[in-house]
């Protein structure tokens, strides 16, 4: 069970897309798990032949649990070859013989029902004389588990997940905050000219310019890009930018756009469009949710001028953008109206110093002054 964020403790397997004997390659989607952040497609990081499925559908297992065994090419089959996982067969319910009076239930079944929180009143017994057996209790517990959570339950679980991660962040990460105002007139003018000559399906949003500029700027200050794990900074070679995306109904996810520093604006736009769409329909991939090396939160859409972010652990930095707004700006001794943007950096002081954070914001500003080079 992959960790899809520092706030995730367990996941429920809802669907297997592979079976023993199937050949899989790295990156294939092998299963779907239900988490506090919705249904996520799980990819495999191993290539080979599926040898055994270890976790049945409907089971909730902790992060780190082995879900299935994949034998890589050339690797000898584990001896003795494992018996195929028996699919629990639903016993054919025989017509229950209804005995008038009190429902019959074995003491063991009653005890087990109490442990699992199964309501005995709704149970149909398949045992002798319609008695409720241990199996009946197990089955009822399983089907209750398989019931999809309601919107309210999902919302509560999501709030709890966000709360846990943010509390941990505030408790453990010594944040420092920096902010700067960026003149966006060149970037916005370039974007307007560019979009005028593009068909609607290929137009860009200014968020994509910000995304690319962040990805390039962080290459110059690599200690902001990566993780803080086990008391040490682990900068990442790859720049995977996590984009905070709000879900209607209150959720929040930060799936990653991979290798954002080496992709073109068009590729990033297509990637962002795809991510937003999949985030909202609940079909994000496990790697996208777990491997962002830096996060961007962009609250300008909501009319916010400035956002001071909370770092999403174990990452070490979060870049915040407000809205682009026409405001007075001093240019060559004269006041002019310019589209301005407040950019902020929340960074982990264990991994970087304010001086380096300042260099990052300066680089970001410089990159946005030459949008044609992004």
């Amino acid at each position, binding site marked *: 069970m992959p960790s899809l964020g520092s706030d995730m403790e367990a996941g429920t397997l809802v669907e297997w897309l592979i079976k023993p004997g199937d050949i899989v390659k790295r990156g294939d989607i092998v299963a779907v798990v239900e988490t506090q952040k919705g249904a996520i497609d799980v990819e495999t990081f191993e290539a080979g032949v599926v040898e055994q499925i270890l976790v049945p559908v409907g089971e909730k297992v902790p992060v780190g649990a082995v879900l299935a065994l994949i034998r890589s090419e050339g690797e000898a089959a584990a001896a003795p070859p494992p018996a195929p996982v028996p699919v629990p067969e639903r016993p054919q319910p025989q017509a229950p013989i209804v005995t008038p009076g009190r429902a019959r239930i074995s003491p063991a079944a009653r005890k087990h029902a109490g442990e699992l929180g199964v309501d005995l009143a709704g149970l149909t017994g398949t045992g002798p004389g319609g008695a409720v057996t241990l199996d009946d209790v197990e089955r009822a517990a399983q089907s209750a588990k398989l019931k999809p959570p309601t919107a309210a339950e999902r919302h509560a679980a999501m709030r709890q997940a966000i709360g846990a991660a943010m509390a941990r962040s505030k408790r453990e990460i010594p944040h420092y905050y920096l902010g700067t105002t960026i003149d966006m007139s060149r970037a916005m003018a370039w974007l*307007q000219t560019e*979009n*005028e000559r593009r068909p*609607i*399906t290929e*137009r860009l*949003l200014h*968020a994509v310019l910000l995304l690319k500029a962040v990805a390039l700027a962080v290459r110059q200050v690599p200690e902001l890009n990566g993780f803080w794990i086990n008391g040490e900074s682990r900068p990442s070679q790859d720049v995977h930018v996590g984009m905070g995306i*709000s879900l*209607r*109904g209150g959720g929040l996810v930060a799936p990653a756009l991979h290798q954002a520093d080496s992709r073109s604006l068009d590729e990033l736009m297509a990637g*962002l*469009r795809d991510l*937003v*769409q999949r985030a*909202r*329909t609940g079909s994000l991939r496990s790697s996208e949710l777990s491997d962002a090396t830096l996060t961007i939160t962009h609250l300008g*859409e909501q009319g916010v001028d400035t956002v001071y972010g909370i770092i999403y652990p174990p990452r070490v930095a979060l870049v915040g953008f407000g809205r682009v707004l026409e405001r007075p700006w001093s240019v060559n001794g004269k006041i002019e109206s310019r589209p301005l943007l407040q950019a902020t950096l929340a960074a982990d002081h264990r991994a970087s110093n304010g001086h380096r954070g300042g260099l990052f914001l300066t680089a970001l500003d410089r990159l946005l002054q030459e949008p044609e080079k992004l």
Partner: protein
Amino acid sequence: MTAAQLKATVLKLLGTIAPDVELDSVNPEVPFRDQFDFDSMDFLNFAIALHKAFKVDIPEADYPRLATLNGCVGYLQEGLAGRS
């Protein structure tokens, strides 16, 4: 296409972009973004959906006219009339 038909089609497209919006309760005079969570990516996807469904060109300068349901209907009526 009548205004009512245009309106119905526009609402249907809106539903594909923002699946959780109750389409019956959309106020035709109030900008979408003031009624529900509708960010610039949603708006762009919505404009693309209109473009594909009605085969009309929508320059970026016209975006403000698509902010409300009635605005969309009026804009599409003009665009479709200009073509015939």
